[in-house]
Structures are given as structure tokens and as C-alpha cells.
């Protein structure tokens, strides 16, 4: 079975690897490219822990054909921090105790960032809608919602 070379932009840097026929983007990122931030939860598009953005739009990596990202911009939670400086969302998640076991956190962060990028001052309702495709079994969601709202206020001020 022939592998397909895939050249794409991951968190701002050009990357290249080979995709197996039918390989999903999640496996491709984790095994092929070495970005372990998107998580494998359900493998069927239900849990949202593999959420990444493709050209700025949130997608489920487990349901995305790896080779379809050729030439496109993929962003994951690994691209949020700049060096040792955390993204305001990451700071807010820590301060609000929005991560407990942490497995959903990378996907939550990507969904939240996509929201703030298109809507810097979301309402609570907007936040709930934006993370409605991400399941968290620890926090009961409230600390996550609070964290996203706190980060948006911080960003608007800054």
C-alpha cells in the first residue's frame, strides 16, 4: 500500500510526513508528526478530545482524512504557548481549575481559542455553544466556562 506524502503547516511551521491509506489526522499527527497534544478519546467524533483547527475552523482529527490537510494550516493545543509564556486561555484554565484529569483539555483549549479568535467578547451562551462538541467527565463544565470568559476579559483589556 502506497503512502502519501503530506506537506502542511502545523502551528505555523511547515511539516511533512507520510500518511497511510485511510489514516486519520489524529493518528497522523501523533504517530507520524509527533504532536501528542490532540488526544484519542472515542475515535468516532463524539468526545471532541482530538479537536484541532484546519484553516481556522475546528475539526475532529479522528474523522479527518490525514492527506486532506495537504497545503492547509493545522493548529493544535501544542501551538498555544509561545516559548515559556502560556496563552491567556491556558493561564485562565489553570487559575479556574478548569482541568482535572486533563484529557479533554487540549481539545477544549482549541475549541475555546477558535471561539475567541472570531468573537473576542463571547457571552456565556456563546462559550457553552462553542464547547458543546467537547465532553468533560470531571469538571461539570462550570470551571471551563468561567476560564474561557476570564481569558476573554483579559484579552479584551490587553
Amino acid at each position, binding site marked *: 500500500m502506497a503512502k502519501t506524502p503530506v506537506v502542511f503547516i502545523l502551528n505555523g511551521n511547515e511539516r511533512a510526513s507520510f500518511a497511510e491509506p485511510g489514516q*486519520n489526522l489524529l493518528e497522523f499527527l501523533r504517530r507520524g508528526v509527533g504532536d501528542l497534544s490532540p488526544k484519542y478519546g472515542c475515535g468516532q*467524533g463524539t468526545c471532541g478530545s482530538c479537536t484541532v483547527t484546519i484553516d481556522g475552523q475546528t475539526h475532529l482529527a479522528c474523522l479527518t482524512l490525514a*492527506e486532506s490537510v495537504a497545503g492547509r494550516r493545522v493548529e493544535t493545543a501544542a501551538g498555544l504557548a509561545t516559548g515559556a509564556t502560556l496563552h491567556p486561555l491556558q493561564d485562565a484554565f489553570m487559575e479556574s481549575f478548569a482541568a482535572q484529569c486533563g484529557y479533554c483539555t487540549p481539545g477544549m483549549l482549541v475549541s475555546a481559542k477558535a471561539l475567541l479568535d472570531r468573537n473576542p467578547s463571547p457571552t456565556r451562551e456563546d462559550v457553552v455553544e462553542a464547547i458543546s462538541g467537547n465532553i468533560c467527565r470531571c469538571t461539570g463544565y462550570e470551571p471551563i466556562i468561567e476560564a474561557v470568559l476570564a481569558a476573554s476579559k483579559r484579552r479584551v483589556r490587553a
Partner: protein
Amino acid sequence: MIQSVETHATMADAQRAMAADAIFMAGGTLVMRDVNAGVTAKRIVRCTDPALSDIRLTGDGVTIGAGVTMATIVSHRDVAFLAPVARMVGGPQIRNMATVGGNLFAAHPYGDFAVALLALGARVTVAGQTGAARPLPDMLRDRSRAPLIVSVTVPRPQAPADFAFLKVSRIKPKGVSVLSIAAHLPRQGGRIRGARVAFGGMGPMPLQASAVERVLDGQSLDAATIARAAQVAAEGFDPPTDGLASAWYRREVAGVHLKRLLERMGRG
């Protein structure tokens, strides 16, 4: 196991590549689940024709490319009447991926958008087709043998209040449907003319509720008419029993939810 992924520039080429060992992939939200589980065809066929993402006004209708996503439906002004339906499909990530064409092939408990299209009297254009678009029910009757869909042409409701959609799910705000109902009730002088009501989750595919349509036609949407429509809501259906609900439950509540939908439409 997938052995090859074949990407074509036109749907006519993609259609020619289809065979018993191939599956067509659009947004991937249905097909990739099977691919991940290792239970699918040997070949994936894709199409990159940008025309698949077009939305065009056509006379008193709108033609929606099969590759248009639910997220685009939510935000595009020419299909505003369908936005409330698309908003009920999946979560944000799914809406960014899932397509109009794919929804026509989505087995229960998915496929709510197709229910709305059925109630609106949509027609489908298939790959390589010349001539008029085909009625959606013909395509839905045997989806496993349906050819590739290029676009869907949907008549626009004359008044926004003539069309309404309701999805019943146990999980809010994002959950699959126990059942869904779409109703298009054009009114002339207060009387319903040409009622079309469709159910999802009441059979193996989105189905028209002809008994309900017969009750509504020629009537005004008053309490007595709504009560009679609710009474016959489950008539002619053989709903499934699954992890979400039993067939008995679906038959029991179909009328309750239809009543709520019609009352909402009656209030305008």
C-alpha cells in the same frame, strides 16, 4: 482496511470510479468512523470540485452544493430558512465538517437535515446527470444504491413562518435525535395548501407523514386541526427500537411533539 484513496476533480469522474469495493467520502464524519473501526470498503473515493461548495439562488428555490457544510448553512443568508435545522446538527466541529450531501446518506439517529429537505420538497441532482433534478424521496428509498449527489435544489418557503423544524434529543445542547419533525405548511387565505410533514427516527429513513398531511390540507392551523393531526402522527410508521427509545415510545410521543411544533407554527 483501506488500500487506496482516490481524489477526483469532478463528480462525473468520481462516479465512474465507484464500485462495490469503494465508498465515497465527503465531510468524513460518517465514513471515517467506519474507516477507524476497520469495517469499510477497500477504496475511498473523494472529489475536490470547488463547485460542490456553491450556494446559488435559482428562481424560487436555492441550489445547494452537496459539499456545503452545516456551518455554511448556519451562516449563509440565502439559506437562512435552513439555519435553525443545521444548528441542531452535531457540535461545532461536526458542523464544520458534515455536508448536505452526506446528510442524505446518514442513517438514523443522524440525518436530521434530510428530514427538513424532505418536508421542503427538495430535489437532487446526481453525478453526470443531464435534465431535471429528481425528487428526494426516490433517492432516499434506496440509499445504498443511490448515485453520487452533486447538489440539492430546495424551494424557498414563501413566508419564513411556513416552515418549522423540531428535534427531540435527550442531551442538550448536542445530542442525537430520538426523532425529528419538519413541517412546510404554505398558507393561502389562512388555509394550508400543499402541506408537507416529514419525520426522522420513525423508520429506516426520513419519511413523509401522509396521514398528517391529509388532515392538515385545506384547514386553518387551529387547535382542533392540530389535535387531529397529532392523533394520526404515527400512522403508517414502523419506528425502530434502539438505545435511545423503543418503537412504542416513539409512536406514543410522535403526536405530542408534532402538536408542539404545529402550535409553535400556529402562533407564527
